[in-house]
C-alpha cells in the first residue's frame, strides 16, 4: 500500500505544500537582488528540524500537557522537531558551530557572534507572513541585522529589572546605586545578588553612563579600555557586598524566598513568580535605564532542513504561539497581536510589551566586539576579554 493510500489527508497536505513550495521558488527566484546568500523563498519542508533553544521556547507538552506548540507545528508542516536545550549563550554558539542544527533562539550576546562568524544566513523577511505584525521596535536592530540584511524572526524580550524585598529595602529603590554605590550597597551587604554572566558588566556601564559622564560611555556594549576598566572596578568593589551570583532563574527565586537575597538585578519572570507565591517583593526599572535581552530565531548557514526552519520561524512569530510562549516563559511578545490572546489579559502590561518609553530605556544585549561601531575604531574590548574580566571580578 502506498503512502498516498494510507494517509490520504496527509498526502494531500504534502502535495499542497510541495506545490506552494515550487510556486514560491518560481515566484521569488527572480527577485533576489540584494545578496546571493540571502534566503528568499521557502521550499518544500524536509520532514525534520533540529533546534537549539532556551528552556521553555519549544514546548512539546512534555513539561506540561497543556503547554504545547510543537505538536501542532509538526502536524501542520510534517517537520519532526528535535530540540536541544542550551543553558548559556556561549553554549548556543558552540552548538551552532557544529553544523548539526538548523536554527537557534539566539539572544543578542550570541547573535552578533553568529552573524560575524557566518554561522547564520540572512533572510528576506517578507517571505515570512507573520513578520509584518512584529513590533517595529524589534526590527533591524544591531543584534538581528547587519548591513541592512535581516537574520531572523524576533521572538520576545525582557528587561533586567531591580528586584527587591519590600520588607528589607525601604524606601523603594529607584537607582542602580542601591547595588553599586558602596554607601547604599553596604546596607544590604551579603544580601545583594547579580546574574552570573559576563554580560552583567554592561549593567555597571549603564550605571556609569548616567553617573560618570566624563567616561563618555555611549553604548554599554562598546567599551574602550578606560570605560571597561571603570566598569570592572565598580563590579570588583560591588563583589564585597554580593551574597550570591545567581546562575539561573530558579535559584534566584529560591534566594529571595529563603531570605538570602533582598536586592539585585533580575527579570520580570522571577518578580511575577515570587509575587504569585506571596512574597513581598517588587521590581522596577531604575532611573538610569537598564540592560535587557531580545531573542531572535536564526537560520543556520549549514542547515540540513532550512525550509522546516523557515516554517518554524513563521510559526513562532504567529500571534497565537507568541501568546503561549510569552506567558509560559514570562516575557514580552514580539508580535503585539499576541496581547489579545494571552490567558492573563494584563500580560502585555505587566511586561511592558507596548510601552515604547520603557523599551527605549533598555540597552539590549549584544556581543561586544573590537569594532566600537563609531569613530573610535577597533579599540573596544572583545567578548573573551569580558569573560576573563568576569573571572577576576568574582575573584
Amino acid at each position, binding site marked *: 500500500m502506498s503512502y498516498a493510500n494510507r494517509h490520504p489527508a496527509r498526502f494531500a497536505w504534502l502535495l499542497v505544500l510541495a506545490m506552494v513550495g515550487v510556486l514560491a521558488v518560481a515566484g521569488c527566484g527572480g527577485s533576489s537582488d540584494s545578496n546571493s546568500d540571502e534566503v528568499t523563498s521557502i521550499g518544500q519542508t524536509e520532514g525534520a528540524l533540529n533546534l537549539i533553544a532556551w528552556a521553555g521556547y519549544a514546548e512539546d507538552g512534555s513539561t506540561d500537557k497543556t503547554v504545547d506548540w510543537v505538536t501542532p507545528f509538526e502536524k501542520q508542516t510534517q517537520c519532526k522537531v528535535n530540540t536541544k536545550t542550551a543553558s548559556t549563550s556561549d553554549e548556543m554558539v558552540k552548538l551552532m558551530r557544529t553544523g548539526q542544527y538548523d536554527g537557534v533562539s539566539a539572544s543578542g550576546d550570541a547573535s552578533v557572534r553568529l552573524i560575524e562568524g557566518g554561522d547564520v544566513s540572512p533572510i528576506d523577511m517578507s517571505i515570512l507572513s507573520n513578520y509584518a505584525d512584529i513590533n517595529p521596535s524589534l526590527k533591524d536592530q544591531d543584534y538581528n541585522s547587519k548591513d541592512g540584511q535581516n537574520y531572523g524572526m524576533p521572538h520576545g524580550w525582557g528587561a533586567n529589572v531591580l528586584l527587591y524585598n519590600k520588607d528589607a529595602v525601604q524606601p523603594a529603590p529607584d537607582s542602580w546605586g542601591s547595588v553599586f554605590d558602596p554607601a547604599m550597597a553596604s546596607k544590604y551587604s551579603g544580601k545583594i545578588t547579580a546574574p552570573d554572566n559576563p554580560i552583567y558588566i554592561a549593567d555597571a556601564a549603564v550605571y556609569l553612563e548616567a553617573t560618570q559622564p566624563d567616561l563618555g560611555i555611549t553604548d554599554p556594549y562598546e567599551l574602550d579600555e578606560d570605560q571597561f576598566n571603570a566598569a570592572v572596578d565598580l563590579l570588583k568593589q560591588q563583589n564585597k557586598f554580593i551574597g550570591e551570583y545567581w546562575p539561573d532563574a530558579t535559584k534566584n527565586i529560591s534566594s529571595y524566598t529563603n531570605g538570602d537575597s533582598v536586592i539585585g538585578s533580575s527579570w520580570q519572570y522571577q518578580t511575577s513568580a515570587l509575587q504569585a507565591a506571596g512574597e513581598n517583593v517588587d521590581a522596577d526599572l531604575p532611573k538610569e535605564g537598564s540592560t535587557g535581552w531580545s531573542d531572535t530565531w536564526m537560520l543556520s548557514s549549514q542547515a540540513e532542513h532550512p525550509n522546516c526552519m523557515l516554517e518554524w520561524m513563521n510559526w513562532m512569530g504567529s500571534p497565537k504561539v507568541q501568546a503561549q510562549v510569552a506567558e509560559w516563559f514570562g516575557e514580552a511578545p514580539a508580535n503585539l497581536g499576541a496581547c489579545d490572546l494571552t490567558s492573563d489579559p494584563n500580560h502585555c502590561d505587566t511586561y511592558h510589551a507596548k510601552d515604547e518609553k520603557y523599551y527605549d530605556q533598555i540597552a539590549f544585549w549584544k556581543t561586544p566586539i573590537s569594532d566600537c561601531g563609531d569613530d573610535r575604531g577597533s579599540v573596544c574590548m572583545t567578548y573573551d576579554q569580558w569573560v576573563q574580566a568576569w573571572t577576576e571580578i568574582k*575573584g
Partner: protein
Amino acid sequence: MGRRLADLFQGHPRLTVAALLAAPIGWLVIGYLGSLAVMLAASFWHLNELSGEVTQGFSLDNFDTIFSDEVYRTITFRTIGVAAAVTVTDAILAFPIAFYMAKLAKPRMQSVLVVAVLLPLWSSYLVKVGAWRLMLSEDGAINWALSPFGLHGPGYGTVAVWLVMSYIWLPYMIIPIYAGLQRIPDSLLSASEDLGAKPAKTFRKVIMPLTFPAIVAGSIFTFSLTLGDYITPANVGNKQFIGNVVYSNFVANLPLAAAITVIPIVVMVIYLLIARRFGAFEHV
C-alpha cells in the same frame, strides 16, 4: 570454531595475554590517555580574536594569562586550601567511625554500618547539594537550630563549601580506613597490651603506623574530588574554585579552560608522589 580458537591459544601464552588485555589497554590508551593528551594539546591553542573560534597552533598565551593574572593564583590557593581542610576534617571524622566498624562492632552491626556509610552514595549528588543549599539558607534549618543560642550559620560562602564537601566525600575516607583497620590482626593489639603498652601508646605505635597508608589512600579521594568539583561551589559558595573557572571557560574559551585544568593535574601529581612516599599504594 571454539575448538580452533582454543587450539590457537594453546602453547602461546603471549597471544593469550594480548587477547585478554587488548580491550582494556585500548580503552586506557585511546579513550583515557588519548582524551587527556587532546586536552593538554588544546591548552596550547588559542582563540581567534575576531570570530572567537579555536585556532590550533602552539602558543603559551594561556599559561601566560594563568601565571600573570593574580586571580588564578588566588583561586588555586583557595581550592587547595579547601581541599586540604576537607581532607583533614574527613580523616578526623572517619577514623573513629571506621575504628568502631572494624574493631568493635559485631559482624551484623558491621554490615549495617557499611551500608549506612555507603547509603548517601546511592542518591544523586545534585540532590544532596540542593538539600544543603536549603539547610544553609537564611531561613534554613541550620539558622533555625542555631538561633535559640543566639548564633548564626555560615550562610553561603567558602565555609559552606568546606562543610558540604566534607559531608559528600566522607564515605570515600571511611571505607579505605575501615579496610586498613580490618587488615590489622587483633593479636597485634593484644600483644601490645600484653607488653604493657597503654591504649594511647598502642594507638600511636601500632594502629597509626599500620593504618596511615589507608588514611593517605582515602585522602587522595577527598583531596582530588574537592579539587575538581564545581557544582558545590556554584550552589553554596560565592567564590570561584578551579572547577568553576574551567566550567565558565570551556564553552567560551576552550584552550584557556584546558590550560587551567593543568593546575589540578600538577597539584595531584605532586600529591600522589608524596602519598607514595607514605606507602599509600603498597596495600591498597
